[in-house]
């Protein structure tokens, strides 16, 4: 995978460093490149999806310093030094992240296109001070559209996995 996304090369690029899925990366980026485009095209991390490119669907959700954000709405140059986790960085080798496993078990998707965003969003939710009831989970997951309409199963998966993910986060924080 090329570390130099400036294909045309005519205009100045900026150097940023990222801890991307646990790995230190030094990247040349064009100042207008969104975080989403950086991930998908030059880096080939296409697990992060583009559904609208306008912050309207949540398919591009990633974890930036542990917080969920729409990666289509932010420029890569703004995140020099940040820690970034994408869907590719959640599993530990062959072992799925508990949220991923719950999504499979509850069939919380159909086409799978919104799924990485849903999962990153749900993992992000685990660090927030909300999402402690079904109603709250539905509300706080409403920035992630699922056109297949797998919402009830998404809810069931998150409800099941959230306590474990929260517990893990608290342990990691210690």
């Amino acid at each position: 995978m090329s570390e130099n996304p400036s294909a045309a090369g005519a205009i100045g690029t900026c150097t940023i460093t990222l801890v991307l899925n646990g790995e230190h990366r030094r990247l040349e980026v064009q100042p207008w490149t969104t975080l989403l485009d950086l991930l998908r095209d030059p880096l080939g991390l296409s697990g992060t999806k583009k559904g609208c490119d306008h912050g309207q669907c949540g398919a591009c959700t990633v974890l930036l310093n542990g917080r969920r954000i729409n990666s289509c709405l932010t420029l890569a140059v703004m995140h020099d030094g940040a820690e970034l986790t994408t869907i590719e960085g959640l599993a530990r080798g062959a072992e799925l992240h508990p949220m991923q496993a719950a999504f499979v078990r509850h069939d919380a998707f159909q086409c799978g296109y919104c799924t990485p965003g849903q999962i990153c969003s749900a993992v992000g939710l685990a660090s927030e001070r909300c999402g402690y009831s079904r109603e709250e989970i539905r509300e706080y997951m409403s920035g992630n559209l699922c056109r297949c309409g797998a919402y009830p199963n998404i809810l069931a998966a998150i409800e099941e996995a959230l306590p474990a993910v929260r517990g893990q986060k608290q342990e990691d924080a210690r």
Partner: protein
Amino acid sequence: MNRAQSPLGQPLDRVDGPLKVRGQARYAAEFDVPGLLYGAVVSSAIARGRVLRIDSAATEALPGVHLVLSHLNRPPIASYDEPYEDADAAEGSPFRPLYNDRVLYSGQPLALVVAETQALARHAASLVHVEYAAESHQTDLQAVREQAHPAPAEVPPPRGDFEVAFNAAAHRVEGEYGTPVEHHNPMEPHASIVQYQPGGELLIHDKTQGVQNCQRYLEQVFGLQDRIRVLSPFVGGAFGSGLRPQYQLPLAVMAALALKASVRVELTRQQMFTFGYRPRSIQQLKLAADGEGRLQAVEHQAIGQTSRFEDFTEHEVEWSGMLYACDHVRLGYRLAPLDVYTPLDMRAPGATIGVYALECAMDELAHEVGIDPLELRLRNYSEINGNQGKRYSSKELRACYRQGAERFGWSRRPAQPRSLREGHELIGMGMATGVWEAMQMPASARACIDADGKLLVTSATADIGTGTYTAMTQIAADAMGLPMADVEFRLGDSSLPQAPLEGGSATVSSVGSAVQRACAGLRQKLLDAAQQSPASPFTGASPDAVEFIGGRMCLKATQHAVELKRIVEVSGALESEAHVEPGEQRQQWATATHSAVFVEVRVDEDLGTVNVSRVVSAIAAGRIVNPKTAGNQIVGGVVWGIGQALQEETLIDHRLGRYMNHNLAEYHIPVNADIPGIEVIFVEEHDSVVNELGSKGVGEIGIVGVAAAVANAIYNATGKRVRDLPITLDKLL
């Protein structure tokens, strides 16, 4: 011996689940191709007219821009209609991208800018300046409804004498129902990557419901026989949007041919509103019943919109002649051409809007007669499809009504509208019937077993989230008596055995039958191979005398068993291919899936907001291969029905002839907070006619009837009958 339970009918996890949750399933735009160039589409800003000039000087001056493609410099394409007619083409003259200077609709692709990055292509495309000679346009169906012409569809002929029966009946209702334009909006935008191979062959990744449909289309349009292979292993939703090749595909091919390079064209969300959609409809329903509520006369007249170049038709009014018993029926269907793109099949095309109108009218009739809406359906229950005069091969709709009503607590519904409230919320309950065809298409599949005992089954079908990978793996594992882990199903490759378009809920029925048959052929080959070895205990055994179970072939009589891999170790890999046509036995029967859907709503009396608080959907669809994935399909359909009832509507500014809300912030679809608990019941239904599996398919039936049930519940809650979808709060205040 360990009698492994058959995987058929088990609620198994999706076999492609792990790939999807890891972000490793690759969709059309996500393949890494060396030297890839990126295209961005320039869309028409007018609805009708001509292109006078395309000024691309500023664009071409940018370093990194390789090409500005338009009708002026595109590679040659076919000049007759026929090559453009794909497997889901409407009647008429299909749209030809970049063909000439004519502008047929707003948003039409007029040029493609190809550059070294996506961002550059997008920017460069914004610098292309198009000069038009605009002509006056019409995009409003209401304005031209009187000029509609009869649709080129086989609408069942009238039966009985509607006029006389209607006028003589004790109870009559009539009303006009309207449904808006809706767009499929799968989460994955349409995209194509055309990989230009050294020999000039094209390896194409496309978002489609039919790889062979796209392959044929490109071969014909570009005259590229035997040089095209289309792949589509994962599709990020489609719901019908992938039934026809969409314009990004020929555009990407044109650019690849012109540049002899690999090109990707990915549409923006805004451009997802520049091709097919569910057409707006205006429908008139007239129902009459005797004193007991028995239907005396049914009339359903529909007007749909279409483009000026094709007559798009769907099964919209047929349902009113087949769902209930009635001797006097008159159905009509007309079309009005507008300066818009041709509509396209969208989840349960026709039924979604036609059954909506019928089932609301039935609710109105129940109130008119003064009986319970469910009771009205039971009094008019029909074992035959009145349009065809044929009995249903199976129809457990009565069980749907009974089990659904019981689970929902229908008996607690207040008969009097606007009589149940909690605080400022009015509570109402409504129900409706759903119906969809149970089709089967010709399909092929190949099954191949290797010396490790692994089975590979292939067919050029698609999985658009419907669970095809999983269902076919289950069917094959069952047929061969192998564990799921030893079976792999491959699809989404035009070089695989022939399969129909993935749509209409026909995939399990069609491809599933071919998989079963291919496996039967393979079992025979395994038996033949075993009989080759000297002194084989299988010598002389007929296929009926053996069974395949737990990875072995066993003689039923003696329980003598041999592992399949042992046979293949000796014989070498074995393979069997089968082609299955819809069975002759289907001819004498009507085949359909049915549902009964029950909905509770809460309407805020002050704000007019509607909250769907409970849904029960009871489905009769024959044998269910996987209740987990099938249940998910039904839930998805219900979610779509809620969106149809309350939110979805693509609005046109008729002065500009252009969509106003062509994005996901303003085109509302349900979000998680809008969706309540949805209970799905699959009632037991046995059918030996539809196909050997006895499965009817579940992709469409989930949505049918839902919008009517919501509308009827809103009436029950508020006493207001809104006949124009979506039922937004302004209509309730």
